């Protein structure tokens, strides 16, 4: 995650996790690399499904940066549930 277009700090990550009571893996860029994730993967609010055997992007959805409409997560969750249902 980033923080207002800058590298997110640990305190920002903690605030985000605590605000939404997140129970998922939550990460930020390490110090010294700037906004590397933003520069490499793209802008928020985007969601990817990755095949862990090949690390290929199976599905990518870009949500609205303005927060309009269903989020990328809302749109992509049915797809990953279907993939998990099918199995490897």
């Amino acid at each position, binding site marked *: *995650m980033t923080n207002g277009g800058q590298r997110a700090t*640990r305190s920002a990550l903690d605030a985000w996790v605590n605000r939404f009571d997140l129970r998922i*893996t939550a990460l930020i860029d390490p110090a010294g690399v700037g906004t590397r994730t933003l520069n490499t993967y793209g802008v*928020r609010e985007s969601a990817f499904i990755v095949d862990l055997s090949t690390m290929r992007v199976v599905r990518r959805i870009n949500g609205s940066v303005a927060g309009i409409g269903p989020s990328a997560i809302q749109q992509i969750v049915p797809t990953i549930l279907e993939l998990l249902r099918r199995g490897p």
Partner: protein
Amino acid sequence: MHSPRWLGPLALCAALLGCGSTPTSSTPAGDAAAVDAPTVDALAVDVATADVAAPEDVPADDVAAAVDAAMTAGPYPEGPYGSREGTVLANLEWEGYVNELGQERSTALTFGPTSLQDLRGDGRGYALVHLAEFL
């Protein structure tokens, strides 16, 4: 996230428990079968006797030489990398909270370094990656 792969083991457990349940039939035939069945204690003695000879059949060397199945993915796939569908997502390093079980708030876990390669696990299944921004 709960994988449906758990359904197999759960179904198997249910079947085994069913075998051990007490018959509920009230027919005379059901009662007769219950009387003729060996008691639990008798079965336990039979099993214990059979187990005594079993360890001698397994050479200790074989146990020591057994190789565990790989529990980690192989090397990270080669590029070229990208973030569009069909491309290989680049292996990045991060720091934060790795919450594998989802049973507690992530900030209750240890803050530390990780990478996409670390998060691949055994290389099976799928990962959901979400890019967010704290405003």
